[in-house]
């Protein structure tokens, strides 16, 4: 995988997004022009319609569809909001600008379209995703929270003003933020042969300091807690386009475990979207069994942690693999949890020198 050029995938996708937005407008225009109350149908996102697909190894929406009709007074406002959101996205995309969910909320006011609150405008964006089957990042709408990447990967920007410029992702020692520009960049070349995703900023920095990227020939991704969708999509692209295996390191508790799971199998909230998950990614630690085997310093699992474990036990995503079963059981048995930093008890470099290679080997 010395040199690879994936140019084109991002630009192609942008074209598709634009034309699907226009088609949506056209369909509504024609319905009204024909003297009909316009309507839109889309897959239902109600919990009954969210199913786990073991083949795809992610949540998907079932066959149930809902109809938004402008004849129904209760649908009217969300309908108008949806069409507005489509128009707004269209303008963003064609002007090649980006915005955040927060911007969307405020921009609406300029069109005399009001959203009750941020939640309402977020929901409309999710509706638009569902209708078109693209995720909001495709419409140039990004969430607030940002994560980062570091390692031997050269990308080429497509954002205005930077078109054609390339960058090496080792050029900044804090890593490069996975924002709109990076998300829409094409991958040019890499020497890395794996991706290591890390939950916490402290450890991400430690890994860079300790030259993990070089020692292990890896791209390092900071998820910063639960990975944002742009980051999940980015990891998937690394996996798919560059064929890099992905290893996820989290805290040793139910929440960390689930961060890994969402990267692997996606979230129910995004069941209407594809290509946000990386089914072949591996959760490499910190496992409950690691806590036992490495005799890590621990804290007790509290009531909320235990409740979460019980929930996860019933979750279809966890049914798949005996690994998850074993770990949930072990957590329940030992009733303890450990942070990634807990390895410091064996010295600051122990995690890099001992633990990491062992786990990469174990979960390969």
């Amino acid at each position, binding site marked *: 995988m010395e040199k690879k050029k994936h140019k084109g995938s991002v630009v192609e996708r942008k074209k598709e997004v634009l034309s699907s937005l226009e088609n949506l*407008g056209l369909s509504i*225009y024609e319905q*009204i022009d024909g003297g009909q109350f316009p309507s839109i149908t889309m897959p239902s996102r109600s919990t009954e319609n969210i199913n786990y697909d073991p083949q795809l190894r992610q949540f998907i929406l079932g066959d149930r569809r809902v109809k938004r009709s402008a004849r129904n007074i209760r649908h*009217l*406002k969300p*309908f108008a909001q949806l*069409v*507005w959101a489509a128009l707004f996205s269209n303008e963003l995309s064609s002007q090649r600008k980006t915005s955040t969910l927060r911007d969307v909320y405020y921009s609406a006011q300029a069109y005399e379209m009001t959203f009750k609150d941020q939640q309402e405008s977020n929901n409309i964006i999710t509706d638009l995703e569902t209708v078109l089957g693209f995720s909001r990042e495709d419409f140039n709408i990004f969430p607030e929270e940002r994560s980062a990447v570091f390692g031997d990967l050269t990308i080429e920007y497509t954002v205005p003003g930077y078109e054609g410029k390339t960058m090496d992702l080792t050029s900044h020692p804090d890593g490069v933020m996975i924002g709109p520009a990076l998300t829409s960049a094409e991958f040019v070349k890499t020497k890395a042969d794996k991706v290591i995703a890390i939950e916490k900023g402290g450890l991400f920095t430690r890994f860079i300091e300790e030259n993990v990227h070089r020692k292990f020939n890896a791209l390092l991704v900071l998820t910063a807690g639960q990975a944002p969708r742009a980051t999940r999509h980015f990891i998937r692209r690394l996996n798919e386009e560059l064929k890099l295996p992905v290893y996820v390191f989290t805290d040793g508790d139910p929440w960390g475990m689930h961060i890994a799971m969402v990267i692997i199998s996606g979230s129910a909230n995004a069941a209407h979207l594809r290509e946000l998950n990386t089914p072949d990614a591996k959760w490499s630690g910190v496992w409950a069994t690691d806590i036992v085997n490495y005799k890590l310093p621990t804290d007790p699992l509290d009531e909320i942690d235990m409740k979460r474990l019980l929930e996860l036990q019933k979750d279809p995503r966890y049914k798949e693999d005996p690994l998850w079963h074993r770990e949930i059981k072990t957590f329940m048995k030992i009733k303890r949890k450990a942070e990634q930093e807990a390895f410091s008890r064996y010295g600051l470099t122990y995690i890099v020198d001992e633990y990491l290679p062992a786990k990469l080997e174990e979960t390969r």
Partner: protein
Amino acid sequence: MAQTTFEEISAADFFYRNRDIAGFTNPSRAIFAAIRELVENSLDAAESLKIPPDVYVRLSYEGEASAETQIYKLRVEDNGMGIQPRHIPSAFGQILFGSKYKLKQQRGTFGLGGKMAILYGQITTHQAATITSSTGLAKIYMYKLMIDIQRNRPIILDRKVLINREQWRGTVVEFSLEGDYFRAMPRLLEYFKQTAMVNPYANLTFVDPKGRLYKFTRVTKEMPEPPKETKPHPYGVDVELLQRLIQLTSCKNLLEFLRVHFHRVGDITARKFLEFSNLSPSKNPKRLSHEEIVRLMHNLKKFKDFLPPDASCLSPLGEELLKAGIVKELRPEFVAVHQRKPATYAGHPFVVETGIAYGGEVPRRGSFILYRFANRIPLLYDEASDVSMRVITAMNWRRYKVMPDMPISIVVHICSTKVPYKTVGKEFIADRPEVRKEIANGLREVARQIQHFLSRREHVDRERKRLGVFSKYLPKIAQFSAQLAGKEKPPDIEKLLKSVRQFGEEEA
């Protein structure tokens, strides 16, 4: 040991000493009570002829009396029936003299009110009262009077007879009194307003000491049927009344006595009753012993077959007039009124009329505004203790979609030959089950009507809102979709809006 001395005092003396009883408690109440008594006499005098009343009241400043009180001249003029000259001195100068002791609905009852006002004026200013009256015949009579308090007799200071060229009919009462008008003012104006409300056929004019004119103009000349005089109903008699009737009667036997002196007692009923009471129909009533009279009274109350009293002795306002009065004084957006069928308590017939007014100029107070009336007189004091207030508080208004924070006024009018006042103050109605039931049913009826109105309006409102939503969002959807599709101008939405309007009409 002190010597106990006994003396007799006259009725005038008694009320002079106990003027609180009649409402002349303090300088501000006194002004209010004096005006009220004279206005009510005037309304009675006009109504008994079924003439739409014209009452003119003027209170003018005469001078200082003390730091807080002033001396005023009060003049009340009406177009009523007038008084025959020979009765004028007693009617205005002798306490407990009057023409309204009969059993029919009238405002006045005691033969006291007008005199108390004059008496109060006399004791505070030591001046005579002037009464001018004509029954519309050739002459007008003018008397200058004072009351001899110890002997309860009028003292005539002057008497004039004038030629009645204009065929004027009515009465003018004029005298001076001490009082505190500015403290009395809010209640007094409220009194006029509420009086106008239940007397919508009357013209009331009031000129206050500052020369301000308050005019309440009639909206109709229709008047309620005047009441007919009635006899006491058997259920309502007491031993005292029986004894008085026995003394007066010329009937020679009990059968005739019952038939002649009691309301709704005919030959058959009288016979049945006498059998029930084990009394001989031929017995002379004057021969009844005291014990027999007491037993007769008890049996009269016990016997089940007397017909209930009829209501011809009552003169309720009627739904039309009540509505006119409410609309005139409250200017609401909506009004509902209801008249109950006559009912009785303890042998006394009564009729309850209710009204409810909503919106318009009715203020929003956080609780309902209650207007209470008895025999077309507003009751302004002791509202909380009144049976109407209790009924309103106990009622489940929510059922009628009525909330206390709505702009709502409630009107309750009770007419009776004997209004069941709780106290001698005549300011609130006692909580008697029969009365409570009538008021409750009357209020339920108007509540149903307002519920109907409110839900209709709600529907109209909803429809307007619905159309509003469509006219707000359809154009936007049209505009956004056109822009999105890259069209020059938005598609025509008129057709869609039309169908929205049609749909709304079908619903209604």
